[in-house]
């Protein structure tokens, strides 16, 4: 994204006065959720503040926690370490073709235009999209079609609340969805606004013509 565009987005959000994720009138986080849902073809998005937060959200959303085992081949050392910290075991005996717990896409300026295509290739119940590579700091999302998984994910990231806008005063009606351990995995609206513009502007890079080669 051009520096001018980033500057414009940041100035626009600062002028609105709304830079808090728990502000009732925030429009940036819902805007990014809608864009990610549209581009990935998934019904629901949970925005979080890092890749490891997204992995945690993807698993907790499915009710997977300490003492459980999952199938997810091909994870790097960092993700494996994080799963061990969560107390989740990686199954080594999974048969080929067995469903995986989550898929993972890391976006940057080079591949952001391919989000739809990459998401279409994903078959896992949860899709982790790491947005950190877009350049606005740690940011990620979990995309899913499962409303229960989404509801659990939202509650994990905001201390058991289910709606950022009413989190201080809401009363819980679905106690079974409240996670045992709860974090603040909330994403800044300023970061969300920049990510949204970067994704909205992402275009296929120009290819060199045959004549030039």
């Amino acid at each position, binding site marked *: 994204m051009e520096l001018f565009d980033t500057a414009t987005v940041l100035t626009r959000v600062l002028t609105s006065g709304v830079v808090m994720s728990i502000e009732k009138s925030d429009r940036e986080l819902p805007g990014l959720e809608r864009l990610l849902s549209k581009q990935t073809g998934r019904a629901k998005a949970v925005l979080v503040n890092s890749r490891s937060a997204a992995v945690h959200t993807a698993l907790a959303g499915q009710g997977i*926690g300490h003492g459980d085992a999952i199938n997810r081949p091909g994870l790097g050392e960092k993700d494996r370490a994080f799963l061990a910290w969560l107390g989740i075991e990686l199954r080594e005996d999974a048969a080929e073709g067995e469903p995986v717990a989550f898929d993972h896409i890391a976006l940057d300026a080079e591949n952001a235009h391919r989000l739809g295509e990459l998401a279409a290739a994903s078959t896992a119940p949860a899709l982790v999209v790491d947005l950190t590579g877009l350049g606005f700091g740690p940011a990620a999302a979990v995309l899913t079609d499962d409303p229960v998984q989404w509801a659990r994910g939202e509650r994990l990231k905001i201390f058991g609340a289910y709606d950022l806008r009413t989190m201080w005063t809401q009363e*819980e009606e679905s106690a079974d969805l409240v996670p*045992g351990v709860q974090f603040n995995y909330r994403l800044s609206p300023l970061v969300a606004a920049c990510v949204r513009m970067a994704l909205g502007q992402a275009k296929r890079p120009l290819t060199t013509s045959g004549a030039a080669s």
Partner: protein
Amino acid sequence: MITDFPSRPLPLPNADELAAELAAFGGDAIIPKDLRRTLFPVITKEDVFNLMLAQRSTPQKVVDGFAEAYRQYVGAGYALPTASGTSSLHLALVGAGVQPGDEVIVPAFTFIATAQAVVAAHAVPVFVDIDPRTYCMDPQAAAAAITERTRAIMPVHVHGLPADVPALRALADRHGIALVEDASHAHSAKIGEQVAGSFGDAAGQSLMADKNFPLGGEGGIAFFATAEAHGRAADYLERHGIDYGMSWVAAAFGTSQLARLPHYDEIRARNAELLGRALDGTGLFHAPHVPEGHTHAYNMYRITLTPDAVGLDDLPVWAVKEAVHELLVAEGVPAREWQNTPIPCHLPFQHRDGFGNGYPFTLNPGAVRDHRPEDFPVTQGMLDSTLVLCRELRAPVEYERALRYADAFAKVARRPDAIRKLVEAGDYRRPYEKAARLG
């Protein structure tokens, strides 16, 4: 363009309004409906320009520059910038040497993140009651809760008032355990000239945009007294693949806000003093207690009710509080309960599923209790008898707004008849009988 610039200024106070009918009974509100929005954080051209400049730097430089500037302001030894207050508390505990299954003593009255950070560190929170005047951890209650498995005491500088650090420090030293501060409400709060965040072996602090010192959305910072503690926390992140990094966008906004923090602190202190004097003149309401030598940051302003002072001693204090709450909100002062039950009575500490299958509570079953609100009588009494102003006074509001808040409390206090009428007609419940709320 969407802007937060106010549509019109708030009218100056008018003494005649105090004698008018209460807004809840059809009179005019002290603060008209269209003028109730409190702007926070205050965003200026410096914030905008600083964000523009930050684009020309590297993200790491922006975050490191912010963390170092704020570390110096606080006077802490070492700092780790984080994505949130919870993650900073988690790292403070880890840096202080807390290990899986250890017990960490926390107050029963705080935001839930204090206790959840202990669980994040794979340790077990042990809840104790608070002091009846400061609402911070009671050192005697903490002393009574220490066992062989206690690794740390984590007081919270509740609402911005530093806890009794000298007593807690002595207690921790006596038992060879760590003192870890939750300074999330206490930006610029002091004991003497020492700033909160620099008292303990480690500290965590939220810097989300609704705190006295706001970053651009979400953020936090962990402080450590020694290089060893700092190294332990940094290594922990690396070893476990945890991303707790702060965004450069949040940090850049914080850098310019930090330059103006003392200015806003001064306005908060001025407004708190103004309101406190007015409250103490009402009989019904009382300002927060601030011990000698302590500087309160007033992230929140908790007001105590004494119904007997206005002839309402035959009514339950919690019912009087609910009625007053209704009357104040109608006058345009959005007072709140901010917590309605002790933290150990929230679902995660009743069910204790933790990360799943009861971990880490299963590591130390002896530390686990099935608590009820009455286990914490001081907390319960405070929740029954107090109301809180949050952003309404945290923001450096205009002088005329602070005066109007004072007028609204005075107007309500003049009408014990109206309070009695509401209590007798209302179907009020004690705070803890309602579902546990975050704030």
